């Protein structure tokens, strides 16, 4: 599986079934429509960054993929299989919980607020799901966890308590925890927004390395435009629940076509 890909490597060919596919997705909270008629797909191994002003629905997209929010219209397919609803006999019917759970194990997520479990040590946080959800042996999971901790630069923190770690350290553990599940899809939800500026770089470097050394599909929401530019194959600009513009990061960041994108980038990059 680990076919090393360079940053800025050409986007994986759009052939075959997309790993994530949104079809006519609509999400509303009560009367408030957050996403409307959203169609896009992500190929295997592709890394897509969603940018746009807050409230534009980027985070909602990740939360829909992780089934943290209820989909109110349309379909999401993971590897060709329906995640929440499917079309059967011309009707939109919910899929079985079992099916949803099965698909969900292939998706990992790193949160803005880390969300480590305070009642467990760092190591326990990482091995909990591999052992009890995937059914790995404890020995195997511990071994993997230790190498992941090494990878995120915290080999000596296995027995530490999450509350005794700094924010940056907690987020690195959270990344290790998500990777321990061997996800095919990794969702990164503003993973550096809650961190002190001086540790943001460490966390992003770890994620760059993950991108370089694995073939995991990534859906990223971030305000770190440099990171987005380095890592992603495609950037999608959102506004008001719609895709305003999408394309190769170089194009979007250097020569955005749409006025909204120009304005937004101007504001965040400080031009």
């Amino acid at each position: 599986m680990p076919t090393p890909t360079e940053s800025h490597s050409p986007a994986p060919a759009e052939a075959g079934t997309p790993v994530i596919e949104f079809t006519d997705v609509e999400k509303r909270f009560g009367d408030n429509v957050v996403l409307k008629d959203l169609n896009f797909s992500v190929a295997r191994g592709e890394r897509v960054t969603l940018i746009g002003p807050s409230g534009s629905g980027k985070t909602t997209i990740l939360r829909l993929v992780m089934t943290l929010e209820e989909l109110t219209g349309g379909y999401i397919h993971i590897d060709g299989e329906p995640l929440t609803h499917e079309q059967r006999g011309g009707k939109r019917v919910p899929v079985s919980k079992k099916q949803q759970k099965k698909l969900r194990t292939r998706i990992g997520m790193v949160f803005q607020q880390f969300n480590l479990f305070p009642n467990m040590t760092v190591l326990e946080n990482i091995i909990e799901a591999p052992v009890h959800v995937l059914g790995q042996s404890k020995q195997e999971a511990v071994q993997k966890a230790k190498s992941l901790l090494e990878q995120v630069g915290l080999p000596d923190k296995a027995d530490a308590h999450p509350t005794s770690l700094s924010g940056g350290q907690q987020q690195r553990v959270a990344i290790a925890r998500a990777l321990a599940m061997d996800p095919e899809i990794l969702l990164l939800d503003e993973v550096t927004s809650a961190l002190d500026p001086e540790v943001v770089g460490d966390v992003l470097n770890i994620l760059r390395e993950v991108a370089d050394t694995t073939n995991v599909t990534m859906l990223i929401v971030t305000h770190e435009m440099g990171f987005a530019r380095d890592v992603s194959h495609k950037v999608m600009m959102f506004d008001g629940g719609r895709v305003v513009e999408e394309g190769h990061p170089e194009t979007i960041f250097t020569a955005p076509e749409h006025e909204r994108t120009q304005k937004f980038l101007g504001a965040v990059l400080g031009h």
Partner: protein
Amino acid sequence: MEFFEDWPGYLDVAINWSDRLLEGLWTTIQLTIFGGLLAFVVAVVLGLIAGSPRAWLRVPARIIIELFRGVSLVVLLFWLMFVLPQIWMRADGLPFEGLVYNTFLLGVMALGINYGAYGAEAVRASMTTVPKGQWEATTALSMSWPHKMRRVIFPQAWALMLPSLTNLWVHLLKGSAIAYIMPFVSDFTAELNQLRRPTDIWFSHAFIGLVVYFILALIITLFMQALEARAKNKLGRGPSLLEILSPAPKPVTAGGAR
């Protein structure tokens, strides 16, 4: 008041009656412990179900909780004592016949059900105060409902619900005094009340009786506070029990950012 006047005489009576008083005390302790255990089980089971996202589980649990909380403890006790056995009287050969006439057991049940329903509300409420991010992380890790409850949510809710459970257990101890009106249950209050008949210095005993209840309540409170300290320590907040109990407590190492 008059009960402060006759000190020398008190001792004799206290000695004569101490065996029965101790027996009564033992019954009260048993009522409190068994009632408390039953209440805890009822609280956790009903509380978990009442916090379920599924309406067909949640709604019946809420109704049962409101029912058991809403009728008074005394009414519940009398209902168990007088109405429940009638079912057995009318139909021969039902199992557990011996149990429905066991007034001690009925007392434990009334205490357990009534205070358990209050506890269920505490359990449910404490689970809603576990941060949303924790629930979301369990979803992101594909944990099943029993798994996330047992390993993530409940251990965190536990620290939050303990203060309420402490209060309820003290309430249960105090409520257990009403069991003295039941035939065949000679708890501490019953024995105290017996003392009234042969002696005119009953007040001193009643006062001592109140003190004994007070001490029992303090023991419960201290025990539960120790549990709470342990639970908080496990969540990485506050010192461990050992550190609290050691004569020179070490300064707690401050937790890192967020």
